[in-house]
Every structure is written in structure tokens, then in C-alpha cells.
């Protein structure tokens, strides 16, 4: 019986079924299904314009899919971007997506919106609960920065920092809400060899935080080394899924993606 148990305990953290997204005449995603089991790292690969970011935007409610469903822990949801963290989902944006005008600490505290309890009026009149929550949020953000080893940059403006540190800040902003699903959109983009290695270790450690990961990434070595399973997109279609070994042995993948990469 246990094998057929469909209760929340065995339901995948995230399940996308037959997601189709059309922008006018362009089909950015064509009936794509992806599952993210609890505690796993799932990689999504594909050439430029394959639809990887679009898939994240569907999960985040930034785009509404033309058709298809999404469930979180076995429950179907229609996501709205600002309610994402309430579902325990956090995401980093391709590039940086930081709030440039504000110090690192503020950027990270911004990721704690869903734990705000005080009301607008409490804040307007500066009542104690609002002030206490502000303090607690700052402490949590500092702790997250410390866990990534970048707490000494808390007061700096992002633009003044090396790119690799800024990348970590964007990851800190996602991790601070203690999500149970983390979506990383090309976290290795713009990083050097050693930095990518360090990033790989970080990603591998995230399931230890009770958090599943979806990793969109061009950097083949990174994806192969950290992912439990991989889905490959090409022109909006899912052309392969499987373990890293299966995917890298798949001729369709070599042709569509790895071949291009090697050239």
C-alpha cells in the first residue's frame, strides 16, 4: 500500500504537468512536465531561449501558463508572485536582480516579507511590535549572511562588491525565508572556476536545510555534479529527463545542447 500512497508525505515538492506557454505565435513551453521530489536537486538545461526562465516564471506566477497545472506538496496551486514565499518557494533571478540602491543587509531582509506580522497602522505609528519585528528580521538576515560567509559586507552597497559576492547576496535573499523549494536561475553565470566549485558545494548542502532545489544552468559540469536528475529543454520541448549519466548519454541531448556547447 505504501507504494501507492498519494498523501503529502510522498508527494513531490513541486509537480508541473503539461505546462504550455505561448507568447503570441511563439510557443515558449510546449506541454512540459517536471517533478521535483522532496530533498532533491533537479537540473534544467537547454540552449539559450529554450524556455528555462519561462518555466521559473510560471512557477512564480509571473507568467500564467496557457494550459497545464502546478502542484506543491500534492496540492494544486495557482501561484501569484508575491505569495510565493508563503508556499515556501524562493527564487533567484537570472543575472542579479538585487535592489541596487540599498545595502546588502536590506536586500536580504527584503526576502523576509512573508514573515511580516505587524499591520500597516502599527508601522505608521511606530508601535513596539513593528520595531521588534524589524530587529528580528535584521538578525535573521545577518545569520543568513554569516552562513554564506559574507556578513562583513552587510553595510555595503551591492554595486561596490565583486560579482561573486553579489551572487551570494542574491542567494542569501532567497535562503533567508528558509524556503522548502529554491529555484536558482543560472547561479554560475559570470563566476570563475573556483567560485563555481564553491557554488556547487553550497547547492549540494541546500537539501540539508530541508530544501529541494531546481537549478537552471548552462554550466554542464556544475549541473552534472550537483543534480540528482536533469531535464533538458529545447525550443520549449522537453527532450530528455533522467540521471546525469542517462542524460549525458542521450544522443538527442548531445545534438541539441552538448553538441552546441562543445562546438
Amino acid at each position: 500500500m505504501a507504494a501507492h500512497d498519494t498523501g503529502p508525505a510522498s508527494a513531490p515538492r513541486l509537480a508541473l504537468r503539461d505546462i504550455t506557454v505561448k507568447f503570441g505565435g511563439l510557443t515558449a513551453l510546449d506541454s512540459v512536465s517536471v517533478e521535483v521530489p522532496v530533498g532533491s536537486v533537479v537540473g534544467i538545461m537547454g540552449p539559450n531561449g529554450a524556455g528555462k526562465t519561462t518555466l521559473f516564471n510560471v512557477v512564480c506566477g509571473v507568467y500564467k501558463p496557457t494550459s497545464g497545472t502546478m502542484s506543491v506538496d500534492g496540492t494544486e496551486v495557482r501561484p501569484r508572485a508575491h505569495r510565493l514565499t508563503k508556499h515556501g518557494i524562493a527564487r533567484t533571478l537570472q543575472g542579479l536582480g538585487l535592489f541596487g540602491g540599498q545595502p546588502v543587509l536590506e536586500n536580504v531582509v527584503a526576502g523576509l516579507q512573508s514573515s511580516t506580522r505587524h499591520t500597516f497602522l502599527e508601522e505608521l505609528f511606530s508601535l513596539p511590535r513593528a520595531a521588534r519585528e524589524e530587529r528580528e528580521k535584521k538578525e535573521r538576515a545577518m545569520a543568513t549572511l554569516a552562513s554564506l560567509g559574507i556578513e562583513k559586507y552587510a553595510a555595503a552597497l551591492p554595486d561596490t562588491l565583486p560579482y561573486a559576492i553579489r551572487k551570494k547576496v542574491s542567494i542569501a535573499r532567497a535562503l533567508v525565508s528558509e524556503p522548502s523549494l529554491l529555484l536558482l536561475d543560472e547561479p554560475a553565470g559570470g563566476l570563475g572556476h573556483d567560485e563555481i566549485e564553491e557554488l556547487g558545494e553550497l547547492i549540494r548542502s541546500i537539501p540539508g536545510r530541508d530544501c529541494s532545489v531546481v537549478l537552471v544552468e548552462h554550466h554542464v559540469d556544475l549541473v552534472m555534479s550537483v543534480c540528482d536528475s536533469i531535464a533538458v529543454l529545447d525550443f520549449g520541448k522537453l527532450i530528455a529527463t533522467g540521471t546525469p549519466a542517462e542524460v549525458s548519454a542521450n544522443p538527442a541531448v548531445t545534438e541539441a545542447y552538448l553538441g552546441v556547447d562543445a562546438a
Partner: protein
Amino acid sequence: MSSRTTLIVGLVGLVAVIGLTFVLDPYRNYQLATIAAYLCVVAGLTMLTGVNGQLSLGHAALAACGAYCYAFTANGLAEQEVTGPVLLILPILAAVAGAAVLGLIVGLAAARLHGPYLAGVTLALVLALPAITSRFSDVFNGDQGLYISVERRPEFLAGRGGTEMFQAWVAIACAALVVILLRNLMKGNFGRQMRAVRDNEVAAAIAGVNVARTKVIAFTVSSAAAGAGGAVLAFMTQSASPGAFSLVFSLFLLMAAVIGGIGTLYGALWGSILLVVLPDAIGSLTKSLSLSPEVAQRLDGNLAVGLFGAIMVLVVIVAPLGIQGLLRKGRLKMQSRGTPQSVPVPK
């Protein structure tokens, strides 16, 4: 600055300004009251435009909405022979509420618009004002506007500074309240949400900020502050007329926010002071040049606009953070000269 320093600076400033009203002559007290009235509007505008990134060219119209709401309420109360503090406070509250409602409506439209489109909508608002007041002339009394029965100064003030001193007190009290409340919002999580939306809407949404809601609330709060400013102006001039809330005034408000230092309440203060002091200084200057009355009159109005525009262009080029930005830079430089740098300097 820490909260405590701000509190102390604010309190000392407030006490000093109230003390000032005892020594200033009536004309200067009237100017002081005008600065405080402008501060309400500019503070709201600087939060909306500087902190939340929504450009409004229409804050004069929102202030006008406050002024007219003040007029209707005060005249209604006076007809019922209401006097005393109620005749002062109730109209101000009505002005704040009225402007907030108008702001809510505009804000709902604004939340879907960006940059020039938003500027266009708010511009339409100021341009529509004289048309509305003359179209519904039986309500608004056209270009001439409404006369307002206001609460007179308390008896005990009769012998001292008189009416202008009382006006300054009311204006300062309103401005202080507006600034304190806006400061609370800008310092707290709502301020963080506004800045996040300004810097990157998608990133803000993903972090859990309801982008549309944040924009609408920011517009509503900003309008309420403008309404308070309009109420104070109505109270001081005992009138509400479209001419007092023209497009030029709207542009002046925006320039004041920019020159003072956009997005900061101190900047709003510097800008509001300039807005009153500069035209006054230009007035004395043209007088001292002993020009023909015709030329002088022409210069009086236009010179201020031109000069303000020129200053703003200069500020945008050489000091984008305005007067407050310059002051801050100066202070930081002084501090770093005294003590070794405590902020970690990243490589």
C-alpha cells in the same frame, strides 16, 4: 542617523522653530507657515517619487482637493455655528481624507502605468482642475474660488504675535505630524517594500512584495500628506481657488523635492524653505534694481520659475542627491577625518 539622534534633532528643531515664531514679525511668521504647508506636500511627493519611483506632476491638484475639502467642511461647520478647535481640526481631517480618496483612485490607475504614462495621468489631474472648478461653478465658485470661515486665533494670542503666529503654529503642528508619520513608514518594512518596487519590480514580487498594493498605498498616503498641506494653505489664506494650485505650483513642488534631495524628508524641508525664500529674495532683488513697474512685475513671477529650473538642472548634473546629499557627504567626510573608517570597505 540612529533613531534616538533623529528624535533629539527633531525635537530640538521643533522647539527652536516654535520659539522662532515668538520673535518673527507677522510677515515672516506667515512665510514660516507657508514653508510648513509646502513641507507637507513635498514630503508626500518625495516619498512617492523618490522612495517608490512613481513620478507625480499632479500633487498641486491633490493639495487643491485638500483645500476644497477643508473649505466645504469649515464653511459647513461655521453655518452650524461651530467654533473652537473643532472648526480647525475637523476640516483638516476632512482634507486629508478627501485627498486620500482621490489619491486612492489615481493610485489604482497609476499602479498599472509607468514613467511617462503615469506622469501624463497626474499632469491631466492638475490641468483638469480649473476646468472642473469652472464647470461646476455653483459648487466651487469658478476661478474666484471659495471664501473660508476659519477658526480665529485664540484670545490669549491677541496681544502677541497675532493671527500669523497662530497660523504658523497650526502649520508647524501639521507638518511635524506628517513628517513623523511618513518617516515611520519610510524607515519600516513599508519603506523597504516601496524601495524594492522602485529598484526592481520582479525581484520585489518574488521576495513577497505585493507590487500593485504597495504602489496604491504609497500614492494614497502621499496624497493624504498633500491634502494636509492644502488644508493648511486654505486655513492660512482663508480661501480655496484653482489659481493657487496651478501646474506651475505642481512643478515647483517637484523641483523642491529634487533640489532638496529626492527621497529624503530633510530634502523636502530644504526644498520647501527654498520654495518660499527664493521668490522672496528675487522679489527684493528686482525691487532694488528699480526697474519700471511693468518689467519688475513680469520678472517677479517668471524669474523664480526660470531660476528654479536652472538650479534643478544644475542639481541633477552636479549633485543628484540634492542639498541633503551634499550635507550628508560633508558630514561623512568630517566624521571620517575624526575617526578611522568603521564601515567595511570591500576590495
